[in-house]
């Protein structure tokens, strides 16, 4: 608990030393990091929902300052009926909102109990996996802006309702899959029951009447299951055949068709066995697998949404000398907008009035804010740092740099799917062989014993069902995914684990990946002529001057404890700050601002000079601080024989400094996203398998083009949406852990595959010889699958031993 003294009670971020805010929890004072967190925590505690803190498993989202008046900006849309959601009966509407900050089940509970206690809201549902809140509400009793304000009040950021089919489509897909699974499950239970009667009848004797009756009922129940739940296998098999490929679903479709048609014929002619139970069981288990796959896929963030969230939803449009708030997507070329300090530029444009600094770190990788004057281009998604400016929009939102980048990303994602389908290609061969063997079996029995033709062929198809084979990989990946999750690493694309063993080159982004992305003081120099100052006192003065600054550089001083009462008359200038400390005037800023007569050059975030009336007192060298355990991790990776490369959009000096500190010789600076892509492709053409580690939006396309990609904590959502692994911890050590788990997974997958193949090779001859009846084949298939699942389970177990050895500190719960 020693750490909790410095960590915000609400959002878990470090509390700046110059912040003394607290909230009272169960008669104890807990620190919070800002007034936003304080307001939210107070509201939650006062409304009797303190248990949220007790049961949550993830920290809350830090509320942004503009969230406080989110209700106000929504007010103008209270009367826009199209945003109310789909109309229900009695003047009720169903509203679907995407809400940011929903991280665990306790969040869902908090939102539900906040909203449902309100008159005018009937029912609230929260989907933790996708972050959607669905509320049934009555616009007559409650305004939409109130709902938004309530969500913002407890620390969640609502987004304007989506009319787009995208989000609804995802939910519909899941519901459809669930319906198919449910129908197959219910059908299976019934048919298995009748089958039990039939099998018992086979063994002990059954009169013809009840037997025919049970068969008829099985047929009646199986038909809708086949037509409804089995339809997907037919469409998918047809799709792969029409592309002249043999997909996994072809033998599935074939097996269920043959089994069903032959059972029907046997039933109608009144001779032979029926296999309706095999049909429904097969459909149910396959649907179960498909559903699990779908849920995992949906948990991955959606590129389109992540891209949309990057841009502000609102813009201040200047019309006839007045400003009004409009949705940013309504902006058109030649519109004039005002962008306040601290806001994100909503569109690509040219500054027509004012000058400022823009933070483009996430877009270009450049760590320092860029000065922008009238006539300069600004990019949508970059942040206006210092002053409000007026901008003329020069591109429609769809053509903005960010949108184009998004499209590039989608392209490289579809491109990459070709790599991932390798295992499918093997499956295609396997399936072809199975079909061939089944055909040969059928032909042979046709000439020898027609009565054996159907059971033997079916046994071959069922016993060689690619179940164990198709489970071999997913089961192993599911286990490792669980193991990784326990360490705080989120696996978003399972196939990535298969490629881990081939990795020979690791490419790192610099800003925000190798470095923490915020400035730190690397060196303090005291003017030798001013011995009355020490490093400590100079740092103390500087920290006091920066106490209220929102400039990114001020974060370098945030950890120094200060007494706020000592400082007064602070004036923030664009290039520095001045103020009175302990009765004396000081300036803090760059060389020009502090009248220091030197040629100033420095890498990274540059230098800050502290001066008083008589001259300079101290110099602070700032640089981007390295991430936790970066040096050890990189050294050990190099030892293991990986080629390490830095690919950064930042200036050469800044990159060189980091490269030197981490000992990476191979570095490239000033790389645009396109250049990064080209570099990566040239590596891949040389036969390298590349792991890319990044965080920024500018990394997103290259992350998705790499064979395997990892994003680190603090990465932009767009980058996360393309990454195979999302690391939530701050340390770089997790990269090594991912590589270890990847290798182990590969080993298990190989074991699983060899078992599945051996089993098939052994069993198929017996089946073809007619020695195995279909129900034995079904049992064998299930046992073989079970073995594969159990073997994969070892991945999660073995991990626990290495867990302690690795000693990776987990994020505070």
């Amino acid at each position, binding site marked *: 608990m020693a750490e909790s003294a410095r960590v915000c009670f609400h959002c878990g971020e470090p509390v700046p030393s110059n912040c003394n*805010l607290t909230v009272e929890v169960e008669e104890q004072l807990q620190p919070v990091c800002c*007034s936003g967190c*304080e*307001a939210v925590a*107070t*509201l939650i505690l*006062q*409304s*009797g*929902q303190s*248990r*949220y803190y007790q*049961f949550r498993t993830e920290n809350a989202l830090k509320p942004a300052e503009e969230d*406080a*008046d989110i*209700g106000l900006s929504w007010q103008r849309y209270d009367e826009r009926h199209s945003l109310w959601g789909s109309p229900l009966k009695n003047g009720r509407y169903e509203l679907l909102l995407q809400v940011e900050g929903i991280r665990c*089940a*306790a969040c*869902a*509970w908090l939102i*539900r*109990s*906040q909203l449902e*206690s*309100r*008159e005018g809201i009937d029912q609230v*549902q*929260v*989907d*933790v996996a996708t972050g959607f809140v*669905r509320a049934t509400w009555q616009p007559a009793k409650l305004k939409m802006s109130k709902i938004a*304000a*309530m969500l*913002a*009040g*407890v620390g969640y950021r609502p987004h304007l309702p989506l009319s787009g089919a995208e989000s609804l489509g995802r*939910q519909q897909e*899941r*519901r459809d899959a*669930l*319906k198919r699974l*449910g*129908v197959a499950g*219910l*059908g299976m239970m*019934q048919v298995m029951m*009748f089958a039990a009667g039939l099998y018992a009848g086979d063994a002990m004797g059954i*009169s013809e009447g*009840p037997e025919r*009756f*049970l068969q008829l*009922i099985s047929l*009646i*129940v199986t038909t809708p299951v086949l037509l409804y739940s089995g339809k997907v296998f037919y469409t998918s098999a047809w799709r792969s055949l029409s592309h002249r490929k043999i997909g996994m679903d072809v033998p599935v479709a074939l097996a269920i068709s043959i089994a069903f048609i032959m059972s029907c014929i046997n039933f109608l002619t009144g001779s032979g066995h029926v296999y309706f139970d095999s049909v429904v069981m097969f459909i149910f288990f396959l649907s179960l697998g498909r559903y699990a796959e779908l849920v995992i896929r949906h948990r991955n963030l959606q590129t389109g949404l992540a891209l949309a969230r990057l841009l502000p939803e609102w813009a201040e449009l200047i019309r006839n000398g007045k400003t009004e708030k409009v949705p940013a997507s309504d902006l058109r070329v030649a519109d004039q907008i005002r962008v306040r300090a601290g806001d994100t530029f909503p569109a690509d444009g040219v500054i027509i009035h004012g000058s400022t600094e823009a933070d483009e770190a996430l877009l270009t990788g450049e760590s320092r804010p860029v000065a922008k004057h009238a006539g300069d281009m600004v990019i949508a998604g970059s942040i206006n740092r210092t002053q409000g400016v007026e901008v003329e929009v020069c591109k429609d939102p769809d053509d903005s740099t960010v949108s184009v980048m998004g499209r590039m990303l989608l392209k490289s994602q579809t491109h990459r799917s070709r790599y991932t389908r390798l295992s499918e290609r093997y499956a295609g061969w396997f399936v072809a062989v199975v079909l061939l063997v089944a055909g040969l079996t059928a032909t042979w029995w046709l000439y020898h014993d027609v009565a054996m033709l159907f059971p033997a062929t079916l046994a071959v198809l069922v016993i060689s069902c690619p179940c164990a084979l198709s489970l071999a990989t997913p089961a192993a990946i599911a286990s490792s995914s669980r193991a990784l999750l326990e360490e705080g690493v989120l696996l978003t694309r399972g196939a990535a684990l298969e490629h881990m063993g081939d990795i020979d080159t690791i490419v790192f982004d610099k800003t925000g990946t190798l470095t923490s992305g915020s400035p730190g003081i690397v060196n303090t120099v005291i003017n030798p002529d001013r011995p009355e100052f020490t490093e400590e006192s100079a740092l103390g003065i500087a920290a006091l001057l920066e106490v209220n600054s929102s400039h990114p550089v001020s974060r370098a001083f945030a950890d120094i404890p200060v007494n706020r009462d000592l400082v007064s008359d602070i004036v923030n200038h664009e290039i520095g700050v001045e103020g009175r400390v302990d009765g004396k005037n000081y300036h803090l800023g760059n060389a020009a601002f502090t009248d220091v007569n030197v040629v100033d050059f420095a890498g990274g975030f540059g230098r800050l000079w502290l001066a008083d009336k008589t001259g300079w007192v101290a110099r602070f060298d700032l640089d981007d601080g390295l991430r936790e355990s970066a040096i050890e991790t990189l050294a050990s990776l190099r030892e293991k024989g990986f080629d390490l490369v830095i690919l950064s959009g930042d200036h050469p000096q800044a990159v060189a400094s980091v490269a030197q500190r981490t000992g990476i010789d191979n570095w490239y600076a000033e790389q645009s996203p396109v250049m990064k892509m080209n570099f990566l492709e040239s590596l891949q053409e040389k036969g390298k398998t590349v792991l890319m580690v990044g965080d920024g939006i500018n990394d997103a396309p290259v992350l998705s083009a790499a064979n395997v990609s990892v994003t680190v904590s603090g990465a932009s959502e767009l980058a996360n949406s393309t990454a195979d692994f999302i690391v939530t911890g701050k340390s770089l050590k997790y990269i090594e852990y991912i590589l270890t788990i990847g290798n182990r997974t590969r080993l298990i997958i190989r074991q699983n595959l060899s078992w599945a193949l051996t089993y098939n090779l052994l069993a198929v001859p017996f089946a073809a010889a007619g020695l195995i009846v279909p129900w034995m084949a079904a049992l064998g298939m299930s046992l073989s699958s079970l073995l594969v699942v159990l073997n994969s389970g070892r991945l999660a177990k073995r991990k626990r031993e290495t867990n302690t050895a690795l000693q990776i500190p987990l994020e505070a719960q």
Partner: protein
Amino acid sequence: MSIIYVLIPLAVILLALAVWALIWAIKNGQFDDLESHGWSVVLDDDQKPPPISEPTNETDKSEDKQ
């Protein structure tokens, strides 16, 4: 054994009802949120929190306390 001619069709009718109920529930979003309701058992109190009148007012109050 002739009782099965009554009971089994009855079971099939029940099955049809079950399928209908399931599809109705899925369509109504009953399966969309499988997590938070489980938590409400441990989290909910008998004493309901008083409904918050105006979140922004609360924010002001908490800042006044400082």
